């Protein structure tokens, strides 16, 4: 399945886009999606365990992913 992944700030600069699509087998986890994102050009600038979100809530590497999910890889936050 194809999963859309949102990236932000320094991570978007590293990947050259605010959003990327990756292909993973059905039954994959967020960890599998992240591995594909980190395999893209510039992807190694994303740490091995970044902040991750699924459908606008923080999520764990082990959480399952479905094709319709909005997955995000989130840089260290700076609000305030």
């Amino acid at each position, binding site marked *: 399945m194809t999963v859309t992944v949102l990236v932000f700030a320094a991570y978007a600069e590293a990947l050259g886009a605010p959003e990327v699509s990756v292909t993973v087998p059905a039954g994959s986890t967020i960890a599998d999606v992240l591995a594909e994102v980190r395999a893209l050009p510039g992807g190694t600038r994303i740490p091995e365990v970044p902040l991750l*979100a699924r459908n*606008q809530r923080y999520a764990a590497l082990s959480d399952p992913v479905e094709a319709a999910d909005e997955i995000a890889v989130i840089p260290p936050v700076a609000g305030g």
Partner: protein
Amino acid sequence: MPRAALGLAPLDPARLLAEVTRPANGAEALFVGTVREQNTGRPVTGIDYSAYDAMALAELSRIVEAVAAEHGTPDVVCEHRVGTLAVGEASVVVAVGHPRRDGAFAACRAVIEALKARVPIFKQEHYVDGTREWVHNGQR
């Protein structure tokens, strides 16, 4: 009612203060974060704030609702600005109205601490020498 917002318009602390001032409350606490002229010694000319907009608003809404419930007052509001801010401009305002000052201070503090830890907002500082850098709260 607890309320959160994220937007490009300049913030108006007095409006948020008025929003949380009600006859049931004896104390209002307000926190305003503003752009400093320097950070870790480097002169700053401005800051770009950006966000994962939908999640930032969702997360901030969850925070004000949780803090309101925890501290027993509906009067918890927070607005965060995004876009390019000049030195001295407000990036965030938290306002709390509470029957007692202990509750007002504690709830106000709880919102800004949770916001800084959890809300997906990002910032890039602009320095006097023309360079820019992504900075984050863990660096402080």
